[in-house]
C-alpha cells in the first residue's frame, strides 16, 4: 500500500497560545448527539438521502400489505405486459408482477445489506480495536493481510466463493461480510492508534483503568462516528454486490426475487425483444443512491 506523506516532523509545533480558534468554546449547551443531530439537520443532501432510505425501508417492510400479488405468482396469460393499473410496472417474461417482485426483492436486498453491514462492522471493530490497541506482531501480521487483501479485486474471488457458499441469503451475507470487515478493521485500528496516543487515553490508564475499560469506554465510542459512516457504505456496497452476483447467476436464485436476478431477466429480454422498456430500472440505483447520499458526511 502506498504510504501517505507523514506529517510528523522533527519539531512538533506546540498548540501554543496565539492561535485563533474559531470553534465555539463555551455555552452552546449541547451534548454530542445534539450536536451531531444539529449538523445532520443542516446537511440537506444527508437529509434527503435519509428520507429516501426511510421510505424504501418502510415500503419494503410493508411489501406484504402493499404488494398486489405474491412474489411467486405467475400469470402465464399476461406475460411481458406494459405498465397498467393491474400491473403497475408491467409483467416479466413468465408473467410475474414486476412491482410486487420489486418490493420483495428490495426486502432481500435490504436484509442482505444490513446484515452484512452489522456482521462486518462488529467483526471489524473487534479485530481492528484489538490490533490497534495491543500492536506488536499480531497487529503487524493482521494489517499486512488486510493491506494485501484490500489490494485485491474482491468480486472475482466472491464470484468463485459464492458459487459454493451462495444461493441462499445467509450464504450471500456470509460471503460478502467475509470481505467487508477489512475496511472497518483498518479504519478502527487507525482510529484506535490515533486515540490511544491522545492524552485522555493516557489519563484513563494513569487512573488505573483496565485495558478493557479503556477500550470500551474511551477508545471504541470515539471511533463510532466514522464506523457508522463506513457501515452505511457497506450497506450500499453489499446491496450492489448481491445484485451483481445475482445478476451473474451465482447469487440469490429464482424464484426468490432479487434486484440482480430481475435485471438479468430484463437483460435477456432487452436483447431478445428490443422494443420494450426494460424493467426494474428504478430499483437498485435509486436504492443505492439513497444509501450513498445518506451516508455521506453523516
Amino acid at each position, binding site marked *: 500500500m502506498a504510504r501517505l*506523506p507523514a506529517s510528523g516532523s522533527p519539531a512538533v509545533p506546540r498548540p501554543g497560545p496565539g492561535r485563533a480558534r474559531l470553534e465555539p468554546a463555551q455555552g452552546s449547551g449541547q451534548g454530542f448527539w445534539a450536536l451531531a443531530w444539529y449538523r445532520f439537520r443542516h446537511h440537506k443532501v444527508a437529509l434527503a438521502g435519509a428520507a429516501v432510505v426511510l421510505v424504501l425501508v418502510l415500503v419494503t417492510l410493508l411489501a406484504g400489505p402493499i404488494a398486489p400479488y405474491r412474489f411467486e405468482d405467475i400469470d402465464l396469460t399476461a406475460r411481458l405486459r406494459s405498465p397498467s393499473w393491474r400491473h403497475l410496472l408491467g409483467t416479466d417474461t413468465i408473467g410475474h408482477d414486476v412491482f410486487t417482485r420489486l418490493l420483495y426483492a428490495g426486502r432481500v436486498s435490504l436484509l442482505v445489506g444490513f446484515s452484512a453491514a452489522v456482521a462486518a462492522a462488529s467483526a471489524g471493530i473487534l479485530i481492528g480495536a484489538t490490533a490497534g490497541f495491543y500492536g506488536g506482531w499480531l497487529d503487524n501480521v493482521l494489517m499486512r*493481510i488486510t493491506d494485501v487483501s484490500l489490494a485485491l*479485486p474482491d468480486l*472475482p474471488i466472491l*464470484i*468463485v466463493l459464492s*458459487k459454493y457458499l451462495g444461493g441462499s441469503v445467509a450464504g450471500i451475507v456470509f460471503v460478502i461480510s467475509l470481505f467487508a470487515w477489512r475496511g472497518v478493521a483498518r479504519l478502527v485500528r487507525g482510529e484506535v492508534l490515533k486515540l490511544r496516543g491522545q492524552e485522555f487515553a493516557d489519563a484513563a490508564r494513569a487512573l488505573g483503568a483496565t485495558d478493557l475499560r479503556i477500550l470500551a469506554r474511551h477508545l471504541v465510542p470515539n471511533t463510532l462516528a466514522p464506523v457508522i459512516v463506513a457501515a452505511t457504505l457497506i450497506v450500499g456496497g453489499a446491496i450492489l454486490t448481491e445484485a451483481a452476483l445475482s445478476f451473474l447467476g451465482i447469487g440469490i436464485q429464482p424464484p426468490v426475487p432479487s434486484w440482480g436476478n430481475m435485471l438479468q431477466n430484463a437483460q435477456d429480454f432487452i436483447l431478445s425483444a428490443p422494443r420494450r422498456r426494460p424493467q426494474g430500472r428504478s430499483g437498485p440505483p435509486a436504492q443505492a443512491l439513497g444509501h450513498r447520499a445518506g451516508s455521506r458526511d453523516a
Partner: protein
Amino acid sequence: MQRYVIRRLVQMVPILLGISIVVFALLAAAPGDQVDLLLSGVPGITPADVIRLKHVYGLDEPPHIRYVKWLERAAQGDFGWSRTYREPVSTLILDRLGNTVSLAAGALVLALAVAVPVGIYSALHQYSALDYAATLFTFFGVSVPVFWFGIMLIYLFGVNWHLLPPGGINSPGVTPGLPLVADRLKYLPLPTLALGLVFMASFTRYTRSSMLEVVRQDFVRTARAKGLPGRVVIRRHALRNALIPLVTVLGVAVPGILAGAPLTETVFSWPGVGKLLVDSTLGADYAVAQGIIMFIAVMAIGANLLVDIAYGILDPRIRFD
C-alpha cells in the same frame, strides 16, 4: 530508489504465495470436484472409475500436496488444463488478457480525463452551478451498478438509437489490420463508459476534496503573500500537492476496475478474462478460475507497486527517505 524497488519486488513473492494458498484452499474446500461433476454428468460411471479418475487427476492426495504440485507447475507457467475449453489455462487467459487490459486502461484514462479537470474546477468554484452539477453526478456515478448502467447504455445506444453495437468485440468477418481496429473503435465506447463511470465519479470527488484541502494550506497562503497571481498559485503550488494523493487512489482503482471487469464483460459479451472467470466458475472449471484469480492478483499488486514507486518519484518527502 533502486534498492527500494527491488525490495518491494522481493516482498511481492510471499504476498502472491499467500494469495495462491488462500485461493487454493477455498477451491479445495468447495464441495464437489471435477470428478464428482462427471459423476452426475456421465451415465454408467462406476465407483471404481471414480477412484481411478481421482487418482489420475491427483485428487486423492491431501490438499497441501496438491498445492505444492500446482505451485511447482505454475512456477513454470503451467496453470493446468481447462476441461471445458480443452486448452491450457495459460493460453486461454493470455488470449483474452489483452481485451480486458484494453478495456480497463480505456476506462481508467477516460475516468481521469474527465475527473481531474472537473474536480479541480469544482474545488476552485465551490458552490457554483457546475460544482453542484459535479456533486450530483458524483452521487449518481458511485451509486449506479455497472451492470444496470451497462444495460441502459445498450438499450439506449444499441437498441433504441442503433448508434453503436449492443455487445461483442468485433463485427463478424472483418479483415484483420486497420479495418479491424476501426471496427473495434465502435465496440469500445459503451463498455469503457460503463466500467469507467464509477471511477470517474470517485476520482472527481477525490480531486475536488483534495484540492479544497490543499487550497487551505499554509503554504498556499505563503504563495499568495508573495504576490503570485492566482493561477500561478494554483498551478505551481496547489495542483501538484493536490494530485499526488490521487496516485494512491489510482492504486486502489486498479483492483476495483479488475473487479468490475467480470460484470462489464458479461453485460457486453466482451471476451475478456472477467467473462471467462464467470463462465468457468459457473461451469466449475477450477483450474481456469484459480489461474485467472492469480493473474488478476499479480496485476493488482503490480499496480500497487507502481503506485508506490510513482509516489516516491512525485513526493520529495518520500524520495529522500
